[in-house]
């Protein structure tokens, strides 16, 4: 008898500067296309940091609801869009149409919803700048003229957990939920919490969403000031790498117990096997050069998955292009895998570091890579860093050596997460 249910992935959605469908984004990776450009929505002429992976789609293309679009921010648009694409690809609404209204209510209550984003951005305060100017800083005048200057819905437009709320309302999902604001690990943590919620039987199904749109002037400048941004291109593991580049995006996965998915004859893309989460406790920005946090996260993931290192088919690194993150990631992989290391790749080089969305996008693309049997090359990588030369980093496309992937996600505060997925055999195969 199966006590802990198996958790499978039945729906995928993703958007970023490289496209608005997982397959489209994956194809652009295979083509080696970099979707990062000098376009950030403000005059960047004299800016030292002008590059970003901005999502250029008209919001109406993503969500056809003019009223809702007035209330929410770009990051929310991306989150709601990918959630609904994932639900659609899982065939959820079609299945629900076959249910009685009572059964549908039960379905809604047994459908969890988990989301994550890096956190509130400074731009949420910009609506107040004209009023602060008018008041010449006087809080008394701000109070008096508040209603003349600020939209009554201002606070609601800036709730970090907006995506949870609107995806729930629009799709009638009512189950257990959580919203994570934990910098770049938020997206992966939302998958992890959805996975665990299903394993303990709190829900039968859940959607896990990561979304972010951190390309605003103050955020970009702050990343530059703290030395995190690249001078020219995002080239992980490259000897001349100089940092990361911010991007916008989102991705979502529909998870179900194997039993729930099978009962409605859903197409199963992958199974989630294990996860690990650790902290290095060094403060907000530093990372340990020995890769301590990331290696412990990988070991925890392998242990829960019941796999040995030899059973991992490919590794999707965080690969954010900063000198220290890439080096410590390499050290951790070497420490855990020894000399037998599967093909290593990463995806941020193509569309930027999407912070809270990055773990979700990487998970969706890793599943796509396993399904297609290709480990995409890192197109911006020309000369591998001398101290990482021993690692099988994909300078050209490679093949996974098994149908499993280890995906790594790291964030501020020394956060490290590892997720292990196994692709199910391709349809008909």
């Amino acid at each position, binding site marked *: 008898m199966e006590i802990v249910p198996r958790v499978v992935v039945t729906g995928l959605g993703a958007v970023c500067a490289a496209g608005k469908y997982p397959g489209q984004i994956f194809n652009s990776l295979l083509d080696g296309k970099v979707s990062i450009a000098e376009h950030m929505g403000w005059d960047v002429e004299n800016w030292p940091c002008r590059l970003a992976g901005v999502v250029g789609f008209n919001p109406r293309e993503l969500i056809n609801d003019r009223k809702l679009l007035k209330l929410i921010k770009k990051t929310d648009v991306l989150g709601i869009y990918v959630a609904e694409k994932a639900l659609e690809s899982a065939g959820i609404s079609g299945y629900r149409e076959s249910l009685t209204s009572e059964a549908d209510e039960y379905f809604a209550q047994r459908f969890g919803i988990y989301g994550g984003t890096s956190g509130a951005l400074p731009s949420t305060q910009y609506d107040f700048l004209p009023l602060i*100017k*008018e008041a010449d800083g006087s809080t008394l005048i701000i109070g008096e003229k508040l209603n003349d200057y600020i939209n009554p819905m201002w606070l609601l437009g*800036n709730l970090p957990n907006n995506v949870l709320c609107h995806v729930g309302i629009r799709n009638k999902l009512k189950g257990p939920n*959580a919203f994570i*604001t934990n910098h770049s690990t938020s997206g992966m943590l939302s998958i992890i919490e959805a996975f*665990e919620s299903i394993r303990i039987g709190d829900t039968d199904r859940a959607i896990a969403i990561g979304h972010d749109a951190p390309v605003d002037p103050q955020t970009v400048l702050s990343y530059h000031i703290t030395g995190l941004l690249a001078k020219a291109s995002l080239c992980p593991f490259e000897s001349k790498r100089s940092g990361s580049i911010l991007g916008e995006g989102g991705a979502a996965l529909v998870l179900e117990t194997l039993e729930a998915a099978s009962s409605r004859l859903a197409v199963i893309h992958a199974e989630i096997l294990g996860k690990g989460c650790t902290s290095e*406790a060094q403060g907000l920005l530093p990372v340990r050069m020995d890769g301590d946090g990331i290696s412990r996260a990988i070991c925890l993931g392998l242990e829960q998955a019941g796999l040995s290192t030899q059973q991992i088919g490919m590794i999707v690194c965080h690969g954010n292009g900063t000198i220290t993150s890439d080096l410590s990631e390499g050290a951790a992989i070497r420490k855990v895998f020894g000399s037998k290391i599967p093909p290593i790749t990463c995806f941020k080089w193509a569309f930027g570091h999407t912070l809270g969305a990055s773990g979700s996008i990487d998970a969706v693309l890793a599943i796509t890579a396993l399904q297609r049997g290709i480990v995409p090359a890192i197109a911006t990588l020309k000369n591998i860093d001398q101290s990482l030369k021993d690692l099988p980093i994909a300078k050209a496309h490679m093949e996974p050596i098994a149908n499993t992937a280890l995906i790594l996600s790291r964030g501020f505060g020394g956060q490290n997460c590892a997720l292990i997925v196994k692709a199910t055999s391709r349809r008909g195969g």
Partner: protein
Amino acid sequence: MAIQPRRVAITGIGLVTPVGNNMSETWQSLLQAKSGVAPISLFDASGFSVQIAAEVKGDNYLSQTGHKRLSKAASRSHLFALAAAEEAMQDSGILPDAANGHRWGCSVGTGMVSINYKELLAFQREAAPKGQLEAELILESSIATDPIYFCRNQSAQGLSLLVKRYSIQGYTTSVHTACASGGQAVGTALKLIRRGDCDYVLAGGFDSMISPLGLAGFCLLDALSTDNHNPLTASRPFDATRNGFVMGEGAGFLVLEEWERAVKRGARIYAELAGEGNSLTSYRITDPLPSGDGPIQAMQQALRSAGLHPEQVDYLNAHGTSTPMNDRSEAAASHVVFGDHINNLKVSSTKSTMGHLIAAAGAVEAAICALTIYYNKAPINANLTRHDPECNLNFVCNQTKDFVVRVAMSNSLGFGGSNSCLVFRDPEAP
């Protein structure tokens, strides 16, 4: 399921609230229904429709925040968090060490970023002198180019400060579901220990929205009580004349331990954190359903998670914000969940004295539930003088009662429709 889940003991509590700089001060104030609501002193609020709030009084808590240098990198709410966490750690008598640091987790409910107003003003003068942001000027702004300002305003900064201070090296997370954040953080911590990810978790919440922008946000929504001339009675959950909530601020932290470990080291156990449940109302962004649909499922799931029946619950620490709609919906939900037992169930909302601590509320109220069980006393629902037939519950009014509290429940219901419910049990009770 056949597997007996690992049990979770609450062995440390720390509080910084509008009614006390620490746990014992807060608890005494709650038993005496001493209000923390007063005219806002943190800035000139005299032009706002609402001029009252429940501020943390004085700065005694600062002696608990640790290294002086931290305060530059910490916001007001981070300092509350550092002080409450320190009190909880000292209270529990344990700390992470080199051998078990990786078995410690940290789960916190973090508020929406509350930018320091003076810095926002300086930023406006530097980068938006005409009221509109000018890209070129941002580059020169002393605020926008200050890395410490950037770090302090990251959502992960509160968590990062705590984790570094105690060398917590396991699963660490920061959650935000508006007013349900604190409850969700404690619920997450319960799951982390149950599923074996951690043996110990520092869990809590912290927030301070008593700033011009925070106040503005809630004023614009007409969510706050405008009883500027009667601050002491402005927050009156479940009273027929209630007219909105009162903003509070502060932090609450718990040290949670896997049961067997706590027992083995002879720890004082306040209560068992026995269950958690949560649900999404999926109705409207701010409004609850009058029927209580949403909170009902969270409460039922929390009881299932604790393996308890509704009849076993002795005390409910209600979300009870004092808004017309929340209290009516929560009362309706309680009737559905508890049925006839509702007459035996004692209820109070501690927001009646300390206001609404937003992202910290659920964690502070979790601590209060643990104290209720430990002392067999329930805090008073202050200012409840006119009965509302739509909120017909057995309230703890006027004076606190001594009664046996074997099981307590705490609700946290947030904007966005997230509902979190926690259940606590007396470790001695059968």
